[in-house]
């Protein structure tokens, strides 16, 4: 599964994207964030406050309880500040 990071999530994780084998017990966006946070210090820092992190599956906004099954690309980022 392709994971992408933007803005300070990207800076903390230290890379813009990566391909990851997600364990089969990880079913939702929230569970994926918790699992990512356990992968090392930089991830723990990036996902320390998952409530403020937004997610998109295949380029559409999703809630934390969205299922990640069948996702091609999941992105994590802070609240948007465009415009």
């Amino acid at each position: 599964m392709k994971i992408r990071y933007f803005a300070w999530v990207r800076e903390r994780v230290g890379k813009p994207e990566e391909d990851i084998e997600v364990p089969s017990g990880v079913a939702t966006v929230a569970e994926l964030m918790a699992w990512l946070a356990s992968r090392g210090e930089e991830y723990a820092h990036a996902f320390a406050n998952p409530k403020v992190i937004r997610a998109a599956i295949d380029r559409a906004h999703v809630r934390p309880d969205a299922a990640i099954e069948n996702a091609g690309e999941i992105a994590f980022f802070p609240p948007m500040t465009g415009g």
Partner: protein
Amino acid sequence: MTTSSTVRLQREPFDAAAEAAKLTRGRTDAGAVVTFIGICRGSEAGQPIAALTLEHYPGMAEAEIERHVAEALERWPLLGVTVIHRYGRIVPGEDIVMVVTVSSHRQAAFAAAEFLMDYLKTRAPFWKQVEKADGTTWVDAKAADDAAAERWSAPGRKHAAAE
């Protein structure tokens, strides 16, 4: 009634007046043109800044904006809409974003332009980083912007990220 809509993301500056003129040229059913331009200010949270750098999510940003332009066209009787959003490094005084809406009547043009700006501020995947004397920081999302975007949601159709 022909409706024209354009969404563009680009690093380069834009010419808002030329974009607005394109939407009304050769038609006599347009009675109202609203142009919004967002400009990079010289300070952020009271501190002077040297520049903004806008990061975006290529592919998703275009799709999100196009989806909201389509929603605006459904909600209001518009004759034309153009949205251009820049990314990359932008210095104070430079334009960041523009929205032009054209309609027969002013209410539709005003409402659609506000709707699109509220959504761009809160839903389009762009992030602003500011360069200050003491380093770079990311701009925090504003609760006021979320509230502004929320007023367009009908009950029961709140969007995912607005919880």
